[in-house]
């Protein structure tokens, strides 16, 4: 993957791993709101957040006026008229000190409480939340769904809670979605979590909020919230997921190509050269010698077995290093088989 893919404009294209569908080029944006401060709301949490924010702004305005109002007034009223002017002898006032210690303290405690309640809501994800694994790397984001689909943009169903489990493969990043008013650091060797409940369809920017080097300011992705519904109906999240993270159905070959790029490419070449595992070139139909001395003809069943239970038959000259991918759907496996057949 290209490191530090910095482009001249903020319309950075997401770096695409080889073998996936053509990059979708589009402008990242954060939808504005009518107000001055915050972006558009999405979900109950952002509504509570915005309430807390307005509360805070009013506290701020009131205190600012209480301090700066008298200061300005005094500056004019008591402006020096002569050098010998005498001034007020009053240099302390216990009751006043108590009042302006106690009232702010009480108000601050309440502010703590407001902040804490909001925070508590962000920490406890409902049990029925869909879990998506987020991986941050220099400089791209990767999202893995429960069924194994891996994407570079986070597509989500509307009106369903989602829990993200985040981790990094290199340095610290931070996953920041202003529309949800949330961010969480993405740390190597640590799983952090974050959850939200989108209630609006949206296409909103994800930015990296923890400095991570030269690609930091272009480490964008997007959150796309789409309607939830029947897997058969075009345009729903379920349909998208069933198609392996594509808007419309892919041909088995296209699906297989995509899965190869996401899941197999790191160990299997297409040009006949040896990698961690044997090359796929000319694999289908050939007679393979196995580590135990026997032979087998590579057919559909053998490939499926290799994916679901790779330890069952080990190819001669290789280690048993392939992870089982039993979670793949039949459709994905059929796609992969079609793809391997094509590698003549």
């Amino acid at each position, binding site marked *: 993957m290209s490191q530090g893919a*910095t482009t001249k*404009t*903020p319309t950075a294209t997401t770096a695409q791993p080889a073998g996936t569908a053509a990059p979708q080029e589009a402008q990242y*944006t*954060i939808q*504005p709101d009518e107000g001055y*401060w915050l972006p558009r709301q999405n979900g109950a949490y952002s509504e509570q*957040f915005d309430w*807390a*924010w307005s509360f*805070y702004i009013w506290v*701020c305005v009131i205190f*600012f006026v209480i*301090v*700066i109002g*008298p*200061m300005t007034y*005094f*500056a004019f009223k*008591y*402006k*020096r008229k002569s*050098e*010998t002017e*005498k*001034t*007020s*002898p009053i*240099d*302390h*006032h216990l009751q006043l*000190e108590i009042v*302006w210690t106690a009232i702010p303290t009480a108000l601050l405690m309440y*502010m*703590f409480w407001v*902040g804490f309640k*909001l*925070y*508590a*809501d*962000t*920490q406890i994800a409902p049990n029925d939340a869909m879990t998506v694994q987020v991986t941050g790397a220099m400089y791209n984001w990767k999202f893995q769904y429960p069924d194994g689909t891996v994407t570079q943009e986070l597509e989500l169903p509307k009106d369903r809670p989602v829990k993200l489990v985040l981790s990094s493969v290199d*340095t*610290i990043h931070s996953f920041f979605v*202003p529309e949800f*008013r*949330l*961010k*969480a*650091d993405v*740390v*190597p*060797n640590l799983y952090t979590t974050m959850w939200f409940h989108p209630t609006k369809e949206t296409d909103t920017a994800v930015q*990296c*909020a*923890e400095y991570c*080097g*030269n690609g930091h*300011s*272009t480490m964008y992705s997007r959150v796309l919230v789409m309607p939830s519904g029947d897997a058969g109906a075009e345009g729903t999240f379920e349909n998208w997921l069933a198609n392996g993270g594509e808007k419309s159905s892919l041909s088995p070959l296209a699906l297989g190509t995509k899965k190869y790029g996401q899941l197999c490419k790191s160990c299997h070449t297409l040009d006949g050269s040896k990698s961690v595992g044997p090359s796929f070139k000319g694999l289908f139909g050939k007679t393979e010698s196995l580590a135990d001395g026997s032979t087998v003809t590579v057919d559909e069943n053998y490939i499926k077995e290799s994916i679901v239970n790779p330890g069952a038959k080990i190819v001669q000259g290789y280690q048993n290093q392939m992870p089982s991918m039993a979670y793949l759907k039949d459709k994905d496996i059929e796609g992969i088989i079609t793809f391997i057949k094509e590698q003549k």
Partner: protein
Amino acid sequence: MSRAATADAVYDESGGKNYINAEKGVVSWLTTVDHKRIGLMYLVSTLTMFMIAGIFALILRIELMKAGEDFLTPAMYNQAFTLHGAMMVFLFIIPAIPGGLGNFILPIMIGAKDVAFPKLNLLSLYLYWTGSIFTASSIVSTGLDTGWTFYVPYSTTVSQTSVIAVTFGAFILGFSSILTGLNFIVTIHKLRAPGVTWYRLPLMLWAIYATSIVQILATPVLAITLLLLILERAFQVGIFDPKLGGDPVLYQHFFWFYSHPAVYIMILPGMGIISDIIAVHSHRRIFGYKAIAFSSVAIALVGFLVWGHHMFTSGQSELASTIFSFITFFVAVPSGVKVFNWTSTMWGGSIAWSTPMLYAMSFLFLFTIGGLTGLPLAMVGLDLHLHDTYFVVAHFHYVMMGGAVIAFIGGLHHWWPKMTGRMYHETPAKIACALIFVGFNMTFFTQFFLGTRGMPRRYHTYLDQFQPLHAFSTFGSWVLGAGLFLVLFTFIHSLLKGERAPKNPWGGKSLEWETSSPPPTENFHRTPVVTHGPYDFATTGK
């Protein structure tokens, strides 16, 4: 400001001898143990660093005027913001007020001849220079791109820049800071002239005292952290790097254990300056002396328990975040108490619209905004959105620049006649103050909006929607820059052409106004005996 004290003839018991012309030649300055000369050398050095770091800032703002790459590559931008931040913090604002103004004024204010350990004081200055050379050396070598926070694992495994040189520089600077703090504490305890009781100390000194406590207790933690960082980077020891079994979040705990108290090292002396300016330029007894004095100490102590508020999104435990949030609100209380007492001091005063007083009022305005915008960052839920955005950039510039730096510049004007023996021209000084005030708000108030709308910090380029606000902020930085350069010209003009200063141009009551301007090497010809407080101005009577 009318030239008040015409009655005070230029104080001249020593036949024109003062600490500046007592000895001549570069060597006499480099080997001096006079706290006033050391203070002056600190001032010149730190102000030079302020200028370099400020020029970096203007360059950053020009790059940010438009989205996309204009003339800095991302790597260059990252180095520029890192050096800007690191130099502003470690080479300018931490040493400037204690090392510069504090050194000059502290012994005079208590009627002493010098600090308790004059040679140690000179050593502090040399350590400051050595540390600065290490830090600044990165400009001409491979730069530094870690941010002033040096977060791991970026700083230990990813960055290709001179991390070791700069952190070693900061390590040395830490010793300079510790020794200065130690010196000041002992001086205040031991060298007060007869009659200078604790409650007759000018509030500037209570602030310096509180600052010194923090310097002594917090800086060693920074030293250890930086040493571990150097070991980790050089030898892959495995303390912070997760690949070697270390913990990167641990580094953040260590770092902020120092760096949160360090923000009080920056702001407390500024608060001290403001207390003095407001009382002296209002010719009024300070309101709530004890409240202001003890709130400095309270801030210094509670400030040690809140570092985790920088880590709400870091993956630290929910319990820790909750506790840190709770304690953080208690630091806000003493700061509020100070602000209320300052405003009350103006009530019933005789307020001179002099340059220092205008800076003090700017300070009240800007610091109040800085303080109030810290509150949502302490409310954990709100911080999840605001953390590491331009809201934070704006907040800390309001506190560090709008607070500490504005107070520092105000203090420079306030004690300038004492330090140099020259008056400055009031008109350009006031115009500069106004330019700074307007330019500062244009530059940084804009950034609150950028932050809440979702613009992350440390970005070399940004989404198109942020364009107009960024452009406006850049225009503001030009006004601000013009104001700062005008301050420089006012001071240079004063040195060359300024009128001779009387010993007490503002009608102050604390001890520094009883010696000549500039003072003789030994500060006072006879040890003064003090019979009144520092703010005993003529009152209308009870």
